């Protein structure tokens, strides 16, 4: 009888290692996580019908679970039945996270038994032109937040002549509420390696870097081990997957600077400098790392490529809506009952995600708002929850999908505090290159403090005007998305929750 328990860092942070210790003498495999985090630590057991689950477990539950397995497993109070029949999982469309919770992260055999390296094989067979075309035709857009069409970047880098080109994977997943990159790197590292290898041989880059934030030490260690295994098996090196082309890569670790998630600051950091944002143009595809053509993509973008090659561009673009094609791993976080990863085609509504999958707030209190797309995303009030999760639909309501993170808040969260925090965070993390971001963020914190301390309506009105004006300057005058989008949570909080700022709704609308 095989038992499975996740070795994901968040499963471990809620006690998976203690459960593993209690199971010590049994045949236990440590797999990736299903992403059903509210059930972690989640123990799965093979049965003729499929894997059944128990969770969330503590070490103290282990003896009773083992007893139940000898008799009637479903009688255990923490029994979940067949894990893949759980509605939360069964209704998902897991393309990118197809192996999540099933395979062992560093088992090449597991990876290959579940479709691994089929994309690379296909890319080698069809050659660079057709591979770049497949990426273009799939409609894949950058998953880091900016949603730029990936195929255009690939064609640009491929067409640019240079003695050396690079692939850079942006794994500086700093946005609160997002953890899909971490899950993928810790749980399915070969998928990212395969995606980067395909990118390398396609655009003619012989070297790559994965820039991982230092807050993810387990992802760093897993990737480094996976790179050694991949190299030893011919998936990296002088003859990638039998292509006759060379590609290798290394993992670089960030050092706690949020701004290094911005692609040009990341490139400076990789060069060994302060993470300062560069003005564009030139775009990194033409002049990137060390001034050479560089394909920069988020983890999820690169990890989508093997599947697109293996199953074809049409298979991928059959998912999604409008210009948002394929699937998106949404991440449910914050004050949410069922926090976890929900991979679905674009187009389901925020309400289906938060209320359907998420089950509402963890506290059981009324839902106040959800911040979508990280700390630079707008706070979306429940009246907008029927908006489909689609890049353009979110842009139309003054919000953004970003990297797909959703932070849910109940009615106790003070939106004036959160607005102030957004600007304070921006001040702390600004690289300092452009004035609207460097100075505007600090002045913004001061204006919010004055607004909250204002004695009467006319004093409040005055501060609201200054704050909106400042946000406008930051949004349109900043060099990158940090200063340019930090106003989103501020303006949305002010618009939808004026009472938190001591304002009548009419005052905030002025």
């Amino acid at each position, binding site marked *: 009888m095989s038992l499975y328990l996740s070795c994901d860092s968040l499963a471990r942070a*809620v006690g998976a290692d203690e459960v593993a210790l209690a199971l010590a003498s049994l045949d236990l495999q440590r797999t990736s996580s299903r992403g059903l985090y509210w059930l972690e630590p989640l123990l799965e057991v093979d049965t003729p019908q499929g894997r059944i689950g128990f969770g969330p477990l503590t070490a103290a539950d282990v003896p009773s679970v083992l007893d139940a397995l000898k008799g009637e497993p479903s009688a255990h109070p923490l029994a979940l039945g067949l894990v893949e029949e759980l509605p939360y999982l069964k209704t998902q469309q897991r393309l990118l996270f197809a192996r999540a919770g099933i395979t062992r992260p560093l088992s090449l055999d597991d990876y290959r038994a579940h479709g691994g390296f089929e994309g690379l094989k296909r890319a080698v067979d069809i050659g660079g032109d057709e591979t770049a075309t497949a990426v273009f035709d799939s409609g894949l857009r950058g998953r880091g937040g900016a949603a730029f069409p990936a195929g255009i970047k690939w064609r640009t880098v491929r067409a640019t002549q240079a003695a050396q080109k690079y692939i850079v994977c942006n794994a500086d997943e700093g946005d609160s509420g997002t953890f899909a990159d971490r899950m993928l790197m810790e749980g399915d590292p070969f998928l990212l390696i395969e995606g980067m290898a395909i990118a390398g041989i396609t655009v003619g880059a012989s070297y790559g870097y994965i820039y991982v934030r230092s807050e993810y030490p387990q992802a760093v260690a897993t990737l480094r081990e996976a790179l050694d295994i991949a190299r030893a098996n011919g998936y990296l090196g002088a003859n990638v997957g039998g292509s006759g082309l060379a590609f290798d890569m290394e993992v670089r670790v960030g050092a706690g600077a949020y701004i290094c998630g911005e692609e040009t600051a990341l490139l400076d950091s990789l060069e060994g400098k302060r993470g300062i944002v560069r003005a564009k143009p030139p775009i990194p595809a033409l002049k990137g790392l060390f001034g050479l053509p560089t394909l920069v993509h988020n983890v999820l973008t690169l990890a989508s490529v093997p599947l697109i090659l293996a199953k074809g561009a049409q298979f991928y673009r059959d998912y999604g809506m409008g210009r948002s094609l394929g699937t998106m791993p949404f991440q*449910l*976080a914050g004050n949410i009952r069922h926090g976890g990863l929900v991979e679905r085609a674009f187009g389901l509504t925020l309400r289906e995600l938060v209320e359907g999958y998420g089950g509402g707030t963890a506290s059981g209190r009324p839902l106040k708002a959800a911040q979508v797309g990280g700390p630079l995303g707008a706070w979306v009030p429940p009246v907008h929850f029927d908006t489909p999760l689609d890049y353009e639909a979110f842009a139309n309501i003054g919000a953004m999908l970003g990297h797909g993170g959703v932070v*849910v808040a109940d009615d106790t969260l003070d939106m004036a505090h959160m607005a102030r925090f957004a600007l304070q965070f921006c001040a702390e993390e600004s690289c300092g290159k452009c004035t609207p971001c460097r100075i505007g963020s600090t002045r913004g914190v001061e204006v919010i403090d004055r607004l909250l301390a204002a004695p009467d309506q006319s004093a409040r009105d005055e501060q609201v005007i200054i704050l909106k004006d400042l946000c406008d300057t930051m949004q349109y005058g900043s060099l990158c998305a940090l200063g340019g989008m930090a106003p989103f949570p501020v303006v949305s909080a002010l618009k939808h929750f004026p009472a938190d700022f001591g304002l009548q709704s009419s005052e905030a609308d002025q």
Partner: protein
Amino acid sequence: MPDEMLQLPMLHSLLERHKGSAGALLPILHEIQAGIGYIPDAAIPEIAHALNQSQAEIRGVISFYHDFRTAPPARHILRLCRAESCKSRGAEQLAAQLRERLQLDDHGSSADGNISLRPVYCLGACACSPALELDGQVHARLSAERLDALLDACREDV
């Protein structure tokens, strides 16, 4: 400082190893900090020389990144996540609990060198907020009681 001088052979072999690799400054700084616990002053001219950069450039990089320390760390480092997801699950109350119990501010270090507090903005544990990292280990689904228990363990360990 004499204890820093003892580290020079280690420093030289480390710099020798990284010399050929492009953009090696962050990996070098990480490795020094992992070995010594911080970036000693004496290391800066050595790094500058090895990379053919000015000392000002090296110092500029060290001060830019939150992770790099230029003084020895406390015995325990507790980083409470203060980002949106954890705030929506009571991180501010936990922060107040820490300040109150340890009599330190959010960036404070205890006078006996036992514990340092640092805010952190996201540990990727957002599905089970609130979370903190204590000596490199992440703890999620925190409660006031669990925080107290973790602090007790730090104190007993002196």
